[in-house]
């Protein structure tokens, strides 16, 4: 087996395998006596590739069967595997294609495999600057208005909404307000935009902080302003947000989606960019003593990234944990009220709802090098729970190292 190096998104001085992150403590896989799941998976892939080569050799030997050759060159129409559900699911009786070489991760056929229908925006140079109308447009300069015009191309034709409820008109209204926050209130500085590909699916995984998700809003503005063609980052929100009156409408109209399996799959298959906070609600309810210490990562985003062959870009948000520092989290009260967090901050609940507003902290957003796990593992690796957990921990460690390095 050829030696394959682990991805090194951080500089050589910070080897993620040997030096545990400051805040993470001990590396959970450092002293395991069991074999490394990463290595195990690579062994399995190598073995499968070798078996397939032998099978093909035998199949081709008797006669040069054109049909066989053709089948090997065509990607079978398979749907992503989904975990079993108790409710009935549909299956078709149409024949399923045999397993082929294309199922194995191979750099040569990755490009062909990833030829899907992208939902992309046109390059900024191709955008005709729309005339400024109203106060909102006058708050933006020409380039920013071009970005906004480009984002309107994400809906098909003249349709007012896309399939996830995104409305270019709503975005046009909200963008100037959040852009003002971005520029003057949070004074966002960012670096590493080159790690976000111009097209194709990508998962941005970052740390979450603050009572209100301004970190996601700032990332959306930042990515849109620093990519060409501009990309609309779809932030994956918790299901709880979908139950909130008006907020659920606002989130949907500006392109955010609830984190269900089907939404994830569809968006990545369409080549869109997703922003996930794998800490979930736990990241939001961190107290001031635990700020910038990442909580356990959920693993769903790894599974979907592997299945959709999407790179994962680690993102560090610095400033979000300072915008509304939580002194205490009254968990029993939160449980009783059916809300995820009942915070006590220096301003909340003393100043009422106004106390939830963020302090004018300075934000820094750092995009790390993409983690291309999909190039090493096939879509089937998403079913290997140990490997998926391992990769989630790798992403967590990478984000933590980015935070630690840039907070100094």
């Amino acid at each position, binding site marked *: 087996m050829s030696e394959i190096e682990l991805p090194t998104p951080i500089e050589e001085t910070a080897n993620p395998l040997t030096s545990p992150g400051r805040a993470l403590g001990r590396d959970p896989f450092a002293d395991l006596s069991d074999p490394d799941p990463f290595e195990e998976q690579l062994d399995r892939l190598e073995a499968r590739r070798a078996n397939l080569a032998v099978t093909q050799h035998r199949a081709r030997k008797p006669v040069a069967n054109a049909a066989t050759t053709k089948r090997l060159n065509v990607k079978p129409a398979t*749907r992503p595997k989904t975990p079993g559900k108790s*409710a*009935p699911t*549909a299956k078709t*009786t149409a024949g399923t294609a045999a397993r082929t070489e294309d199922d194995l991760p191979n750099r040569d056929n990755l490009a062909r495999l990833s030829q899907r229908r992208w939902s992309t925006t046109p390059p900024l140079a191709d955008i005709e600057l729309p005339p400024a109308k109203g106060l909102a447009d006058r708050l933006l300069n020409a380039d920013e208005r071009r970005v906004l015009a480009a984002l309107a191309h994400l809906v098909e034709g003249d349709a007012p909404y896309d399939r*996830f*409820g995104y409305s270019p008109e709503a975005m046009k209204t909200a963008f100037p307000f959040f852009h003002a926050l971005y520029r003057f209130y949070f004074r966002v500085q960012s670096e590493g935009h080159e790690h976000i590909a111009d097209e194709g699916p990508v998962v941005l995984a970052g740390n979450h902080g603050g009572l209100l998700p301004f970190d996601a809003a700032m990332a959306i503005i930042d990515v849109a302003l620093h990519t060409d063609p501009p990309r609309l980052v779809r932030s994956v929100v918790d299901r709880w947000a979908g139950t*909130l009156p008006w907020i659920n409408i606002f989130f949907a109209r500006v392109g955010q*989606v*609830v984190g269900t399996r089907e939404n994830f799959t569809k968006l990545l298959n369409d080549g869109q960019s997703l922003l996930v906070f794998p800490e979930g609600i736990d990241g939001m309810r961190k107290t001031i003593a635990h700020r910038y210490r990442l909580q356990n990562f959920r693993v769903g985003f790894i599974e979907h990234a592997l299945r959709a062959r999407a790179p994962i870009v680690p993102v560090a948000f610095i400033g979000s944990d300072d915008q509304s520092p939580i002194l205490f989290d009254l968990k029993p009260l939160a449980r009783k009220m059916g809300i995820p967090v009942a915070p006590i901050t220096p301003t909340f609940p003393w100043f009422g709802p106004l106390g939830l507003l963020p302090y004018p902290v300075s934000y820094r957003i750092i995009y790390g090098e993409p983690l291309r796990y999909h190039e090493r593992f096939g879509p089937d690796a998403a079913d290997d729970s140990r490997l998926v957990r391992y990769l989630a921990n790798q992403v967590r460690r990478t984000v933590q190292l980015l935070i630690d390095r840039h907070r100094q």
Partner: protein
Amino acid sequence: MTNILVTHADEPIGRRVIKNLYHDPDVEVIFALGSGPPPRKFDAYLAGSDPRVTYTRLDLAKHRPVRDLFHSIPFRSAEIDTAVYVPRHGAGASPAAAPLVGGLSERTAESRLLLQHCLETRTIRNLVAIGSAFVYRLPPGNANHLSEDSELNLDPNVMPEIRAWIDCDMIFHSEVHSERLRVVLLRVPTVVAAGGYVYLHPSLAGRPGSRVRALGFDPICALVSDKDVARAVRAAIKTPVSGIFNIAGGEVVPLSLLARWTGHWSIPVPGPLLGMLDAAERVLGIDSRLGAGGGAQLRYGFTLDTERAAAELGFRPQYRIGLARAGDGALRLETASV
């Protein structure tokens, strides 16, 4: 050549299916069933000494009339090989509290009887059924993408109309892998027809009037044109696959906009009151659709993944839905070919 049985042919989608099949050169005989008199549009189809279309009035939810039909000489001589189940959906459909037939809702009884007789009739080899996409469990969110593998809503408190759809869905689903009968179930969302008519939506179907909606929620609704539904039925008849397929058009609109388009005026009601309103309607036996079940469909929206239908049935929507200026100058909901 194909000989086809179509249920509820006197209702709007049924008429559309009959019209589509009538112009198909591969279809020889159409045996249309309906609960009312034949629609006036059928006059041309039924004219002549040996018409291709036969229309029969029948209560499909009752065992004896259905049995008599399937054993009748005209039916046997027609040698029907394909049955198309179009559910009751028109103005006469009783929505929330569907009448009970032997303990089952009307829709459930119909689908059960039809499936049973299709299995017992030797000549019938294919069954294409139109179901509803409102059978899915809706996760919280303004718009959720749902595939055929998404969970069904098995919540015991689901509104009766959706429960009937789920029962119907599961009855057909039980025979999807049958070797005797090829079963295709098409799950369709809100069906829109020219002139602003909306069918199969639990809270918007029926005549224009007042409807309630959940305050602070405006879910996205997937739409499909009735003409596209008829095309999907035709594709399902011709393609030798069985299974469940989502069928949807290209347009999605929020519920409030759809209500406005279709002439309804909606009253926003706070969520907790919706449940109380619905409970009061049930207790008083009112079938006003005012409460509309107070269910998730007023809060959470969905769009459908139609890739399976595109890949295996070759179905892609051809009709766009939107407002267009009618002959009298008024803006009306119309469907137009792309």
